């Protein structure tokens, strides 16, 4: 028998990925992450980033962490992944540049990871693949974020959003989801 073991780091990466995959398959559904707050963003990076990827984040600490993974820092317009630990109007200018992919290669649309605040945000109504019926979602993100998102998303083009709540919960809103802002 070959020797095989699962290191703690790989175990965490695996848990994070399975949670993200489930979240992406069921938009809006809360899925647990092993860590919370900014550490959750770091854990997502750890599971997905390496030297084959480019990332953008305005956060110097996260940037240091991701560079250590071998991932390449870039501007928001070239990034495969964008990480925002603060979701306020200051990130709009970055977000509007995030790649939405091309019709030949829609998968080059970015993944946007946002740490949300516990404060109430826009009330949404989600529908589309992964949802048996239209479902409500209240995020800690202001309406402006979702209006911008809807402006940039035109299936199959657009970016896919991962919402991380501070207590360590992840929800996804892929580009395939129709988001109505109440």
């Amino acid at each position: 028998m070959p020797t095989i073991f699962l290191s703690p780091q790989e175990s965490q990466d695996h848990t994070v990925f399975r949670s993200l995959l489930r979240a992406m398959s069921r938009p809006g559904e809360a899925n647990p992450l092993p860590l919370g707050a900014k550490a959750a963003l770091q854990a997502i990076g750890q599971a997905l980033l390496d030297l084959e990827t480019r990332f953008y984040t305005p956060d110097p600490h996260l940037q240091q962490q991701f560079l250590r993974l071998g991932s390449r820092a870039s501007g928001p317009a070239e990034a495969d992944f964008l990480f925002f630990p603060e979701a306020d109007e200051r990130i709009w200018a970055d977000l509007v540049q995030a790649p939405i992919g091309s019709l030949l290669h829609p998968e080059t649309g970015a993944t946007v990871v946002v740490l949300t605040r516990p404060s109430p945000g826009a009330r949404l109504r989600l529908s589309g693949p992964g949802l048996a019926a239209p479902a409500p979602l209240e995020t800690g993100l202001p309406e402006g974020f979702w209006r911008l998102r809807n402006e940039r998303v035109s299936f199959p083009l657009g970016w896919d959003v991962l919402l991380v709540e501070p207590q360590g919960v992840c929800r996804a809103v892929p580009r395939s989801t129709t988001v109505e802002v109440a």
Partner: protein
Amino acid sequence: MRLAELAHPRQDYAYAFLDAFAKRELRRRLLKAVAIPGYQVPYASREVPLARGWGTGGLQVTLALVGPEDVVKVIDQGDDQSVNAANLRRFIARMSGARTTTDTALATLIQSRHRIPEEMLGPVQILVLQVPYPEPLARVEPSFARARELHADAEYGQVWLGLYEDLVRYRTPTQGADYPVLVHGRYLMAPSPIPRWDNPKLHQAQHLTLLSAGREKRVYAVPPFTEVRPVEFSDVPFEVEDQRGWADWQTGVRHKFMTELPQADGDCRYELSDRDYARKRAAGLPTQPTYYNEEGRFYHPGYLAPRTPAERLERLLHGSPDDLPA
């Protein structure tokens, strides 16, 4: 930094065989595949210790997904005991420490070649289908590069034209398994060579389906609760295999997908293709609800066109809650 810091501690193989780079790549591709239902995401597709064409694509996805807490089921043609299925199952278990099962109800990950189980899959289950030909347009456009352009423009007219030519020439579609479907109203998708019987099981399903072609390096997905419609004309509806007169030679079960067993005298027997379901039925064990009931009715009423005059009359009188879009 020293070179030694970059190298991992000595082990014969990485957990679940794939190294961390390969796993991260697959994770990124899989998330995009789910976000764009039915779209074929290209991926590097590493070699695995299995010949290409023998399920390397499905295996890579399973290895990227599997963890010690998973319970893995592997079937080939519906059979857990087929040598290739046994071989894959043994490899996955050996490399991941995951438990294995033949019972559809107990599995968290199901890797399959050419079948979707008869028992309905639930929300915590993931189905991984092995794909030999990911490109549904290959019949009409052999170049992948040009097919990609057709997908970009959602230009699928040639496929309907092919179906029309079939109808003119043969009065019936000639495509057996791997019958193309339209996913989320946007991408034409090869469902892998599952029989037409299994196609409707992808529509508005409870479970996530991941499809992976190792040799052709494409991975794609059908998320749960996604519209999956066959290529059809509204006046010549899609039909599943007609096995209405067939019954399993051991259990007498009908209205599940059957395999023909030719006999020496030229006759043939019919056998349930889903062997674990057959085992449970033969032993009188409880089974999960199935996609097709004991009368052969599919669980989404109206998804399949009625086939008997009585069914047609009923539909005419009562309509259908899930009528085909015009």
